[in-house]
């Protein structure tokens, strides 16, 4: 059947215009953020809490690893005189080992906190 032969129909196909429909992309929630809505605040508070938890657990770990050393030296006298090969243990611990440990903690923190932010951006992007 040729198009010309098709009988005129009352029915009209209705579709949503692609151009005017609100886009469900980043803008939507990103606007919530920049427009200071309660929802935007809520999203950021969630991220803040996650970051604060990460920071607090990292600081706690640092305090446990590092802050315990003077106490350990005080209550376990053997550690004060112990040797690591030819060198005294307290000097090796405080003069050398502490530094790579700090660098590792810092690197771990940066990765973890960038992951939190990436997840946040992802959620906002899907919202």
């Amino acid at each position: 059947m040729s198009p010309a032969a098709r009988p005129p129909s009352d029915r009209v196909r209705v579709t949503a215009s692609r151009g005017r429909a609100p886009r469900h992309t980043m803008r939507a929630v990103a606007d919530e953020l920049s427009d200071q809505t309660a929802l935007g605040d809520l999203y950021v508070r969630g991220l803040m809490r996650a970051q604060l938890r990460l920071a607090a657990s990292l600081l706690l770990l640092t305090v446990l690893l590092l802050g315990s050393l003077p106490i350990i030296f005080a209550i376990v006298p053997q550690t004060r005189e112990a040797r690591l090969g030819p060198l005294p243990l307290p000097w090796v611990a405080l003069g050398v080992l502490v530094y790579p440990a700090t660098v590792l903690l810092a690197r771990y923190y940066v990765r973890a906190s960038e992951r939190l932010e990436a997840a946040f951006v992802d959620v906002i992007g899907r919202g």
Partner: protein
Amino acid sequence: MQLASVFAIAAVALATVSVGTLGLRMSRATSDFYVAGRAITPRRNASAIAGEYLSAASFLGVAGLVWQRGIDILWFPIGYTVGYLVLLVLIAAPLRRSGAYTLSDFAELRMESRPLRTFASVLTLGIAILYLLPQLQGAGLALRQATGWPTWVGAAVVVVVVFIAVAAGGMRSITLVQAMQYWIKLTAIAIPAFVLLAIWARGHTGEVDFGDWAIPRTDPIGLYTTYSTMLALCLGTMGLPHVLVRFYTNPDGRDARRTTVGVIGLLAVFYLFPPVYGVLGRLHLPQLAPGTRLDTMALQLPAAMTDGLLATVLTAILAGGAFAAFLSTTSGLAVSVAGVIDQDVLRPLLARRTGDDARGATSYRWASALAVVIPFVLSRVLEPLGLATTVTLAFAVAASTFAPLLVLGVWWPRLSTTGAAAGLAVGTACALVSLGSAFLRWTPEGWAGAVIGQPAAWSAPLAFTTMVVVSRLTPHRRPPHTNRTLNRLHTPESLLPP
């Protein structure tokens, strides 16, 4: 002996001035002066921060104190390094996102209060001058040790070189200078350390008994001092005026974090070396030359372990490195002091006089002149304390004032303006007691001396608690735009409209 050291010091000074003035051609706008137009990569910024941070206290002070007091001093460099970990975890990215250039800017932006800004500016000046004093005094001592010249010469050289570098190029050239100075300092402390270790290894015979010197203190006062010092250094780092300025030059919060990790790595490498001098000094330098100060111990060590040309060259390298330390820390502090004087004192004055057309760069140059001359005059008037002692006091002040303001400001929505002001006031008052007793040489024996001499363990918690309690009592004094500010501090830049 003299000639080689003078030559090394002159070379470091000349390099600083020439790299500094090189920056002049690159910096045109006032924002270049302040923050290098914010276009500095994390790697170079990390070198610059480390270069600026490693002061005379790190280069000479720690070695001298280890020589004198033994293993407990190892906590100083640990604290200087872990301070950056605390800063990284608590404030690095949010602070960069706040867009604050100085601590005063942060106080005004977060607390929305002009009086609090003024308070923060006064505190910044106080801490910076406290930190500048030992740099200038140390420069005088180092030059006297190397050449026999009076102490004012060394301080004057630092003042002139820093003024030229800061006023000529501002922040961009300073960034180049500082990055270069980290590597100068690392080389200058590492090479003599390896050579001296080799000399020791060749001549050494059997076990050495160091006695109590090598064993950690375990009496209650010793433990208190260790923990209080650690708290001062860990919390104080974030409140030092020249540290915050550097974070502003990162492009965004993510880079601010990466820069901080770089800084920690660079500091970790550097701090392996100062204790080496302390230990070698213990072996080969039973007594300091009469009339010299503890802080010049490392400079005396090469001559005690070897002689002839080698000793001369090693001393010259150390003297040059020490001078790099004085120059870089002084210029970093001078930049931030100049920033405060310019923004909070000169600019408003000039604007009132001339309408609004005061030239930014001119007023900045006047500010940098004041920023080096005031500490110079003070350093001549005040009797010097030890390098590391004075620097640690500056950390303690920062830990009991700016640290609570920054941490609570970044993480706690309920912080009120009154609470912040009350906390700063309490922290300042505690710090003044400790400062006063140190400068008046009033040091009681036993517990009283330890508690006043190293106040951070009680003054920092007291300042934090005051801020929290007073904020709870004055909820109506919360800054009206707290939510907006916190959103800005914590939202990744990729989600913000450009």
